[in-house]
């Protein structure tokens, strides 16, 4: 069953990719959607099997790498954690496959698009079901590849190409940390299978190792290295720069990859490795601080953006920050809970945004929208549902999960937990603010689009709307539905051994004991955010402009996303090319060739000219010249090589 769920998307991708021209656009859509549909059913059955009957298992496929003591198998690990992900990924992916039929209609390369989407799903499923670090890495890089291919899907656009490369390279920087982390795990544990590593983690606590010449706590360094990988994939501050640019891809891609699934892989990884992170408190604190900072940072940038998709992209970044600091305070269950609810409402927001863009003939700038509420009412309503869920207004999904996270952060009692709590509450205010700013700018007020565009505004076809209904239902009920099992009273039984929390860490258990003001503060912050947005964008539309002028440096700072791109360009990108040219022209050209072959040939050429003057006909003189030449060569070589 699980094998079907994982490999059917691959089958769909292969058929659509290689036989796209034979089966046509419609054929590719039918094949990939039906493969995903069956996979989704299998995914739900597997979930049922594990959630209800607790049939956890490791399904071996075949040996992968066997070298020295290193033994790695292709295998599917099925436990509560992978079951949640498996069900969520297949369902959301199926819904988005269907949506794509409508959204991509008229595109010249539909089979390619469907094939990439299915291939992505396959890699994502390999990632969540892996039973060892290397298969996790396989899925990890695989989804990165698909992200690259899909961001650059419209390969005629230079910006899309640049964004695609940026996405892959920034992810590779994270993966660099990830792979060194894997090496460290192997060095410490002598295996890369999750089972033995998790079993041995307790015994490894407090041990030191030599890393880059320093004596360091082994687990802390390993976990931080692995977390760098998670930061890259999940767009945490510092390595987040690729995510907003990735919005160059088609909107279904943004919904599936850059909101619901791939970007959450980092959170999944930390939760999966909870048995290791639990014994590395410093690493956990790092996760908390990075997560909390990102949550606030991305939210501040979100309020100043004008591109509808970029606002949602920064919102994703911010919500991922929430998930991370939840994991950082040992509330892994809460972070997976939020991951799941977020997948539904954020995919919903993106797809609704796609519906708006579809209606606006490709326009993404909110300053040119406005007044669309009456023209595309269904999109308007589902966007409201998504925003309410995102802002954490009860009874929508986000309320349950976000509240849980903030309560757990407060309950952890540590300084970093409080840091995350304060930043998270402020970010909750900003979240509501930018969400309603988006809603008001897009759907309310006077239309700002030109006549031609407005004339074409239309509600999306059914094939796009039905997915929106499904996701809306998810955004409505997922929180209330999942609460009991994932973080409530049934959590202990549900998760089983999938997540390990040490008794001294409060985790989700502490969230029940927090004061009332803590559990109401996020809601109040959200409501204030909505009120401010209403005041600034409906009641007094002149306020935003005046504020921006009054605080121009801050506004520019936010508008330019804290100048991360500019700084990186200045520190890394341009120097890299500069150094590259220097090494090539000067290093290879002048130094090595100059003193090496070219220099030598010049010298020998010189010598031979002189030698030819000595052409006296005497053999011993020739021999003498040869000996000298050889001696020079040999001694030069020996000297040069041995230094």
């Amino acid at each position, binding site marked *: 069953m699980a094998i079907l769920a994982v490999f059917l998307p691959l089958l769909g991708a292969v058929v659509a990719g290689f036989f796209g021209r034979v089966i046509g656009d419609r054929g590719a859509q039918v094949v990939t959607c039906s493969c995903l549909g069956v996979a989704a059913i299998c995914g739900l059955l597997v979930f049922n099997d594990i959630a209800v009957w607790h049939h956890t298992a490791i399904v071996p496929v*075949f*040996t*992968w*790498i*066997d*070298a*020295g*003591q*290193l033994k790695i198998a*292709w295998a599917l690990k099925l436990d509560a954690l992978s079951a949640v992900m498996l069900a969520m990924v297949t369902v959301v992916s199926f819904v988005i496959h269907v949506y794509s039929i409508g959204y991509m209609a008229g595109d010249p390369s539909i089979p390619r698009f469907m094939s990439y989407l299915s291939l992505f799903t396959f890699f994502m499923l390999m990632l969540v079901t892996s039973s060892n670090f*290397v298969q996790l*890495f*396989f899925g*990890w*890089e*695989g989804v990165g*590849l698909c992200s690259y291919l899909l961001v*650059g899907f419209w*390969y*005629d656009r*230079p910006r899309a*190409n640049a964004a*695609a*490369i940026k996405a*892959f*390279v920034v992810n*590779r*920087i994270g*993966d*660099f940390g990830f*792979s*060194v982390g894997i*090496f*460290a795990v*192997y*060095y410490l544990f002598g295996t890369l299978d999750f089972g033995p590593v998790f079993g041995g983690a307790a015994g490894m606590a407090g041990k030191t190792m*030599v890393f*880059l*010449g320093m004596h360091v706590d082994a687990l802390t360094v390993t976990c931080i290295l692995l977390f760098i990988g998670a930061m890259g994939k999940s767009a945490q501050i510092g390595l987040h720069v690729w995510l907003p640019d990735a919005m160059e891809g088609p909107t279904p891609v943004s919904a599936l990859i850059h909101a619901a699934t791939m970007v959450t892989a980092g959170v999944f990884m930390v939760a999966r490795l909870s048995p290791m992170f639990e014994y590395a408190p410093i690493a956990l604190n790092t996760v908390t601080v990075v997560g909390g900072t990102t949550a606030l940072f991305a939210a501040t940038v979100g309020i100043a953006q004008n591109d509808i998709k970029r606002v949602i992209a920064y919102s994703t970044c911010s919500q991922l920050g929430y998930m991370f600091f939840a994991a950082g305070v040992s509330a892994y269950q809460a972070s997976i809970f939020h991951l799941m609810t977020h997948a539904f409402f954020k995919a919903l927001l993106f797809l609704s945004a796609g519906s708006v863009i579809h209606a606006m003939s490709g326009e993404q700038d909110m300053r040119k929208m406005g007044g669309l509420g009456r023209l595309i009412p269904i999109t308007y309503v589902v966007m409201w549902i998504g925003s309410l869920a995102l802002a954490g207004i009860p009874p929508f999904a986000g309320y349950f999960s976000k509240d849980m996270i903030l309560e757990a952060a407060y309950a952890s009692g540590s300084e970093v937990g409080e840091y995350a709590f304060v930043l998270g509450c402020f970010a909750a205010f900003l979240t509501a603010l930018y969400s309603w700013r988006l809603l008001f700018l897009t759907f309310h007020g006077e239309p700002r689009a030109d006549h031609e565009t407005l004339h074409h505004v239309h509600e999306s076809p059914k094939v796009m709307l039905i997915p929106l209904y499904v996701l809306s239902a998810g955004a409505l009920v997922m929180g209330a539905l999942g609460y009991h099992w994932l973080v409530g009273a049934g959590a202990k039984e549900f998760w089983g051994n999938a997540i390990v929390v040490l008794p001294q860490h409060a985790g989700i258990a502490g969230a029940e004991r927090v004061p009332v003001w803590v559990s109401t503060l996020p809601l109040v912050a959200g409501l204030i955010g909505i009120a401010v947005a209403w005041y600034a964008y409906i009641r007094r539309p002149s306020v935003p402009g005046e504020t921006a002028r009054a605080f121009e440096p801050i506004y520019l700072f936010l508008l330019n996303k804290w100048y991360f791109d500019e700084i990186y360009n200045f520190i890394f990108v341009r120097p*890299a*090319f500069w*150094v*590259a*040219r220097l*090494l*090539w022209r000067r*290093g*290879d050209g002048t130094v*090595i*060739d100059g003193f*090496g*072959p070219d220099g*030598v*040939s010049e010298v020998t050429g010189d010598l031979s000219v002189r030698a030819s003057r000595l052409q006296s006909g005497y053999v011993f003189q020739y021999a003498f010249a040869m000996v000298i030449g050889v001696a020079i*060569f*040999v001694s030069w*070589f*020996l000297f040069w*090589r*041995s230094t």
Partner: protein
Amino acid sequence: MSSWPLLSLVTFLPLLGVALILILRGDEAATTRNARWIALWTSLVVMALSFVLWADFDTNSANFQFVEQGVWLPGLHIAYHMGIDGISLFFVLLSTILTPICVVASWTAITRRVKEYMIAFLVLETFMVGIFCALDFIIFYMFFEGVLIPMFLIIGVWGHGRRVYAAFKFFLYTLLGSVVMLLAILAIYFQTGTTDIVTALNHNFPPALQTWLWLAFFASFAVKVPMWPVHTWLPDAHVEAPTAGSVILAGILLKLGGYGFIRFSLPMLPDASALFAPLIYTLSVVAIIYTSLVALAQQDMKKLIAYSSVAHMGFVTIGIFTGTPEGMQGAMIQMLSHGIVSAALFLCVGVVYDRLHTLEIARYGGLVHNMPKYAFVFMLFTLASMGLPGTSGFVGEFLSMIGAFKINTWVAFLGTTGTILSACYMLYLYRRIIFGTITHDDLRAMLDLNRREVAIFAPMIAIVLWMGIYPSSFLHPMQPAITHIIQHIEAARQTAPDTSLASR
């Protein structure tokens, strides 16, 4: 089957093809056509025979197999001694698989002196296979040096532009290294009284002599790998060589250095290898970072791939000298993977070169529009070159780095940065050639891969994925040989405990 001198057949059968081509008579067109077909069939038969080797190979034994021993110069204790173990087996296979691919790749690209060209390739095959089968230093050296001659001619006669400069640079660099190796072989002969490789492998050389011998071998192998800073012949040689020449250069000749290290330096000179391992690490790490950066700045496709080769071979040298089973097996896989992947990348370059006759990256762009099959093939090998998991490149890099981490975290740390840089330069290259809009009319007129080209790439794609998804077929047969070398080093370490790999 075992009674057949299978190794000698695989080695010398190509020469039969040479003889057939030589006796060809008739008009120009007919001899040209026949020369191509003879070369193709000869190389295919050799390939089939080499598969028999693989099938009959005992994967549980560390000993040399298919051994043939004949008296040659008994007075000097020089014998005709051939045999393969798990290490050489795959290099033999790599050579016999790449040769027919080269012949097919040159089918229409070479129109001048086709007879001689095919002869050169068949002779080259004999030499290449011979190198990996030889178990006597004199035979090994003959093949090792002999291989330069056809390669020199291929670059010098059928190359482009500054081919003579490149050919001489290539020849001088590699020959100078080899001359020093000859001295080392003589020293070994005087020490052991024979040129038999198996005897020498089990001989305990005194530490001082080991140092000198190691340096002498190093001089030769480092140029072949090539290691920084003796790599500058490679970009020039590649740029001027014809496509098939680049394939053999990248696919086989670069492996001679790695093969030499793993066959001779490490097991025969364990103390010196331990002593010089830090030097190797340093040069390799510099190579990975330095040449990756240089690759980023290239404006010529072949140069870019050539520089990337130097970086990839850096992983090989690190892996070998870790002296760990993971590292050494990783180095082996990395060599085989690079042999296929970089060869395929050069073939990819050859495809567009055949159509447009320029290697300048800026002249291309937007090829995905009219060459979708080509875009797919190129993407696949780009990914393999970047070491994406699921392709052969990943297994090699991952294993060699995991081995390196055990020995020295700095080496693994800095070496792994190569994976970031390789993504940069390969994707940047791919974007400039394949993506974007077509701006030139001559690009729009270019046709997608034809059947012959698909037939070249299909087996290579299969191997790359096979090696990436189920590398056990390759790791398993080489395991006994690698374990044997490591045990041998450990035994030597016990006699000389002061210098050991593990103490670093």
